């Protein structure tokens, strides 16, 4: 009898456990953690969290989401920009990583190509997205939405130009002339700053696209064939060498060092994007009002760097992550982003305020240039752009460091590209 009771009790307990488990699954199905009232933590990876002032402002902007969604906790995954791509590719490749990531365009394409991003079309319902989101759509699926688009411009230190009676240049020759004049008038001042070394390859190739596009380069022809050794490319390389060899650049300086020099009023001109310019204009010796901006001294428009926000397919909270992106693309999220992003172009058209434009007179030029700028990635070869540009930058390096002719160096690059792609 006792044994029978024991057996019945066990069976009862087992049935109760199975029923409870089934009920939990049944109730949980079709309902997200956040909806069920359960606390959810979303991890957001971005290298910008580490930026001195901008990082804090951007985080404050996204953190506003928690005010209306108390069940969601946002957690920073701050990775230095130099390690960001390596770390994220490794983590995502291993089936891990953050729930959301703010990625440079090149990384975004690589991760989307591997199938590690989810469709974000649910986050765009009723939202009037601008053209910055076009490249986020691959084969008809919206895998990424614009976090920020940072367009490039020529920036300058107004007081240094005034001291040297230097004018804002419209050509490369005028740039050299004005930079020399500014340096001569104020001892210790550098004429022009810009990336120029292979140890900063990813940044350098993106910056160099301004020179290439500025001289009308298309790295692919109408048939999609890679065209490296064009007369336009040779002209762009020759122009870069002219500036490099003119003595106006601080050869050997890393980009952070050059930006610090600009910030501390030790540089007259630079070609930088709106994100970098915002950094220069904030929290340093230079007042934002002392900074000027203009189109780059090239015949054609330049480039922009784009950061996309994407949701990982490895995330356990995809639904909540997409809901966060929907909020980010909405009016509240976009206004919060605008307040933290300076002049960067956002996913929707949110203009900078008049007050901001007045305090930062350099900002409107960037907004204007964003209308015609081009992606740093090569159309149709987005995933391989870095590999292709490695050959191009090797040619540029050869020209600036030796007596090699741009045409010859680019022909070698063309041969290498033809062999590999």
């Amino acid at each position, binding site marked *: 009898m006792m044994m029978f009771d024991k057996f019945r009790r066990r069976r009862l307990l087992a049935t109760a456990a199975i029923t409870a488990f089934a009920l939990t699954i049944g109730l949980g199905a079709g309902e997200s953690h956040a909806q069920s009232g359960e606390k959810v933590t979303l991890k957001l990876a971005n290298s910008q969290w580490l930026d001195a002032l901008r990082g804090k402002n951007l985080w404050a902007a996204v953190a506003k989401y928690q005010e209306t969604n108390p069940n969601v906790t946002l957690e920073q995954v701050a990775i230095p920009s130099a390690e960001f*791509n*390596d770390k994220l*590719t*490794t983590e*995502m*490749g*291993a089936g891990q990583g953050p729930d959301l990531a703010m990625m440079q365009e090149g990384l975004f394409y*690589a*991760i989307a*190509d*591997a*199938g*590690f991003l989810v469709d974000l079309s649910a986050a765009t319902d009723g939202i009037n997205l601008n053209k910055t989101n076009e490249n986020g759509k691959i084969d008809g699926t919206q895998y990424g939405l614009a976090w920020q688009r940072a367009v490039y411009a020529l920036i300058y230190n107004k007081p240094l130009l005034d001291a040297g009676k230097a004018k804002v240049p419209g050509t490369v020759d005028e740039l050299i002339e004005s930079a020399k004049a500014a340096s001569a008038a104020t001892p210790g001042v*550098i004429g022009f700053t810009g990336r120029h*070394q*292979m*140890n*900063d*390859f*990813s940044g350098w190739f993106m910056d160099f696209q301004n020179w290439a596009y500025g001289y009308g380069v298309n790295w692919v022809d109408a048939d999609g064939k890679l065209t490296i050794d064009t007369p336009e490319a040779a002209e762009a390389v020759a122009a870069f060498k002219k500036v490099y060899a003119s003595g106006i650049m*601080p*050869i*050997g*300086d*890393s980009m952070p*060092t050059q930006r610090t020099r600009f910030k501390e009023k030790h540089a007259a001109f630079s070609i930088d994007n709106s994100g970098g310019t915002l950094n220069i204009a904030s929290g340093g010796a230079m007042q934002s009002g002392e900074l000027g901006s203009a189109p780059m001294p090239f015949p054609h428009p330049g480039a922009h760097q784009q950061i996309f926000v994407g949701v990982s397919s490895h995330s356990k909270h995809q639904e909540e992550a997409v809901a966060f992106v929907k909020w980010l693309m909405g009016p509240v999220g976009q206004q919060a982003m605008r307040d933290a992003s300076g002049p960067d172009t956002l996913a929707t058209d949110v203009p900078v305020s008049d007050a901001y434009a007045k305090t930062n007179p350099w900002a409107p030029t960037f907004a204007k240039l964003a209308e015609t700028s081009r992606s740093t990635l090569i159309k149709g070869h987005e*995933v391989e752009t*870095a*590999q292709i540009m*490695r050959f191009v930058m*090797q040619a540029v*390096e*050869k020209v600036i*460091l*030796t007596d090699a002719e741009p045409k010859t160096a680019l022909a070698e690059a063309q041969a290498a590209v033809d062999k590999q792609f």
Partner: protein
Amino acid sequence: MSASGLKSRNGMARFVPYAFILPPMIYLMVFMFWPLARQMYMSFTNTRIINPNRGRFIGLGNFERLFEDPAFYLSLKVTLVYTVLTVIIGVTLGLIAALAIDRPFKGRSVVRAILLFGWAVPGVAASLIWLWMFNERSGILNRVAELIGLGRFSWLTSTDYALGSVLAVTVWQVAPFVMLVVLAALQSVPEEVREAAKIDGADPISTFRAVTLPHIRPAVQLAALLVTVWSIRRFDVIYLLTGGGPLGSTSTLVVKLRQTAFEGHELGMASAYGAVGLVLALLVAAIHYVAEQRRMKRMSR
């Protein structure tokens, strides 16, 4: 104790050494040999870093591409030159430094601490310090060069100086290690043998050659082996100082491996680079082994 108890205890005792050796063996299997085997396999696949589980077996495809690529031969040459020069200069300077501070003198401990500084500083920190010193515009080296009328040098951006500059930083880090190893060996040279040589009329160089050198040779050989292997796989100093440039003049196999894996996302191809590095390291170890065997044979005669 009964005979059967003793027998069983002896039987157990036979397994004790295996029990001791098992944990390190498991450790090596899991964290060394298994990843190594995976890497070797990967070198025969077209695995991409972004999706490592979707790699397809392509036989010797990666190695074919590798051996057709002139950049590979350049990186192999750079690796060999860099390694050989690091070993020769690093070991020589380390040996000289050890001999210099072997004898007691006033302030020896301070000098020893200063000489050891390079080895104690982490590679990344050392590279950043040197990056500033090499800076063409405001670096201390060019300031001094200008002061003495030599003008400015493009330490890291000229193909003439970049490898030399990277070598200088490497030697600055490596020589103190060699010094430490050799110093430990020097301290164990019997003083009476040196005294006997001196009494017999041997000059310092002959004493060094006949008494000291044979005694410290195994230590020097070991230090040289370690420095060689470390040089083949050194990444931080080179990557931070030059990134492999200018014009590939400092692009060693490891720098190329990183570029292939993380820039090109080609993990299979990067593994092929790794396999070549492994072969180089094994060759060095084999040479060391043969040299050591010959020395032992000579000594036993």
